[in-house]
């Protein structure tokens, strides 16, 4: 059966030109395909941010004189749908650049295809280090068109989190930490590396660790266990829908520990409403710092532009982390292409790659540059560090009280903080 199919394939491949979209029209427009779960706030914020970046480019004469067009597709957060829209963008719409993907499964699902077709692909959502590192390590030439321009990968995030743990210990004397992580690829580093890194600081210990199935929606037993272990801080790494339930359970039961770490749903500017205020005092790390702190000269201009453009179009009212990264990715690539003087990846891919690897860029989320091919994390975005060597482009934000309402404040690192960290009033 398969032999038959192979035979047929050999004949038909040569006729590929017949398939409507493949030959397509390659005109003078620079097309960017954006991929994200646009039915979700995170994806919608990212798509809007990419749109802002494209508008900005067009206002400034496009890329190398070409008009820029953005094609935004919904991956639905599912690998199969991600593959479908990615193929459509490349094969039918002839995009010159792919940006996006939030869910690790989707990223992994399309990465082989993208490597095959050589279209430059800048990942702006998934933080799983393996997605890039492993592939580039195995076959650099094949995967060299793939980059991550943000956020920093979760190995680096874990290091940043350990720095933050030490900071909390300085502030409050908290020394017992609990780590609760989603059972998902992106939390691997937090489960594998973080405990060691926390305990590397004198006096700190990790007293409780557990992983939560993404199906879980009853968190009482996890929180009870952390409580029984006398945790002062629970670092929870949660991306799935249960986050609101987690937060509410913690807040209503007034568990005697602070809630820190990474909560993807908690990054939503609408999370206060979604939890009916239960998220007060919880923190999350997120690139872009929720759009409340002027991380670079670009940050607030971008956030203001976003708010002005989309204030009537529903949530999210701020770009969210992937928005910062998508915005930066589009502009970053445009600048690299300008430097390389080409967007023709089919013939000039190496030139474009070199230009990207050479580029030092100021984005809305921070200063950006990429690891080189021979470094630890090839084609991955570099972390930035403060004078004392602490990772600085992974800021922490906290929900604080503002009258009856909640407000996001950046509380870490100190350089970017807009307010002090506040401990839950019941502690």
């Amino acid at each position: 059966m398969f032999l038959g199919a192979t035979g047929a394939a050999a004949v038909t491949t040569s006729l590929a030109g017949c398939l409507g979209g493949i030959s397509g029209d390659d005109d003078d427009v620079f097309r960017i395909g954006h991929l994200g779960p646009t039915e979700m706030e995170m994806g919608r914020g990212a798509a809007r941010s990419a749109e802002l970046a494209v508008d900005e480019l067009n206002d400034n004469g496009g890329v190398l004189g070409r008009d820029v067009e953005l094609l935004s597709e919904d991956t639905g957060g599912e690998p199969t749908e991600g593959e479908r829209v990615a193929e459509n963008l490349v094969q039918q719409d002839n995009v010159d650049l792919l940006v996006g993907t939030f869910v690790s499964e989707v990223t992994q699902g399309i990465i082989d295809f993208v490597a095959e077709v050589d279209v430059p692909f800048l990942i702006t959502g998934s933080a799983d280090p393996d997605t890039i590192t492993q592939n580039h390590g195995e076959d650099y030439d094949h995967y060299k068109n793939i980059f991550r321009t943000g956020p920093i990968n979760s190995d680096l995030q874990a290091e940043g989190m350990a720095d933050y743990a030490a900071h909390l210990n300085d502030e409050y004397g908290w020394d017992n930490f609990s780590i609760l992580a989603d059972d998902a690829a992106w939390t691997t580093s937090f489960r594998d590396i973080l405990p060691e890194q926390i305990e590397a600081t004198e006096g700190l210990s990790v007293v409780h660790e557990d992983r939560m199935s993404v199906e879980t929606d009853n968190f009482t037993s996890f929180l009870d266990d952390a409580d029984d272990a006398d945790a002062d801080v629970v670092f929870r790494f949660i991306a799935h829908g249960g986050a609101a339930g987690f937060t509410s359970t913690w807040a209503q039961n007034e568990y005697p520990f602070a809630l820190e770490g990474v909560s993807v749903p908690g990054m939503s500017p609408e999370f206060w409403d979604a939890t009916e205020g239960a998220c007060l005092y919880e923190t999350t790390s997120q690139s872009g710092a929720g759009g409340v702190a002027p991380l670079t000269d670009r940050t607030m201009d971008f956030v203001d532009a976003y708010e002005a453009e989309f204030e009537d179009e529903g949530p999210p009212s701020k770009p969210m982390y992937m928005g910062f990264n998508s915005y930066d990715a589009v502009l970053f690539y445009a600048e690299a292409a300008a430097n390389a003087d080409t967007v023709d990846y089919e013939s000039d891919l190496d030139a474009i790659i070199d230009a990207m690897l050479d580029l030092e860029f100021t984005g809305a989320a921070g200063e950006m540059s990429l690891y080189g091919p021979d470094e630890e994390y090839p084609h991955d975005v570099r972390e930035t560090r403060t004078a004392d060597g602490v990772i600085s482009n992974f800021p922490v934000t906290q929900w604080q009280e503002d009258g009856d309402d909640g407000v996001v404040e950046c509380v870490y690192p100190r350089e970017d903080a807009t307010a002090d960290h506040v401990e839950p009033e019941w502690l």
Partner: protein
Amino acid sequence: MISQLLSILVLGAMISAVYALIAIGFTMIFGVGGVLNLAHGALIMIGAFAYLGLTSSAGALSLPPVVGFVLAVAITAGASYVLYAGLVTYIEDNIVITFLATVVVALLLTELIIIQFGAEPSQLIPVVPGSIYLEAVGTRIRYVELVAFIVSWIAIGLLWYYVTKTDEGRSILATSMSTRGAELTGVDLGTVKSRTWLIAGAFAGIAGVFIGTLQSTTPEMWLNPLALAFIIVVIGGIGSIKGSVVAAYLIGYLETASIEILGPSFQGVLSLIVLAAVLLVLPHGLYGRELVHE
């Protein structure tokens, strides 16, 4: 160890009451009409989202929780009736078509909820906020869990009174035992079925608000309660209200215990395996009876 046992005992008792509500509605509809309503989970979802829409402080109405609760239950009961009168009556002669159509209704509702409320989970305002710490047990109980427990048992008690002490209610039980017998005693089947769907809907509404509050409110939330309803009803014996209550406690405790002892990654698997075992050993469940509807 003792405190772990106690906490299983307490937490299990709370959630099992809500599970019983879910299962009773499901089993009554099967008993009376021979319909396996795979949209039962979707009714629970409607209850949660109705409550969300009515009470959310970001929403237009922002009703007080208690008012929202009552209205949400009424809306779910209404939705259940509409499902029966608008769809199921036309297809219930064919059990396969009914089976498929109700599950398709659930999938359709999922999409409509996404369109209306978005795909992200929402958090419901607890009907009663706050919690107490049970020192002896070493666990916390949210007041809303207590309320869920009490309200569920009141609802079950009222139903029990209705179906055993009143002619109207007894007719429902009677119809579930013998449709022809009911007709021979002058029972109007249409009315009985409508009442059954209303009751099942109301129970689903109550369960929906509490499941939504205690667990999560998402457009996918229907599957879990539906699976629970199956498991409980099959273990308890399809058509038996008593069986549903007993099996709900069995499963509630099993889940709570497996979370406390084995950890949550096996949540659900254990009860599914128990279910498979029961199906194979006791196909009619604990209180199973040869059924009129096959």
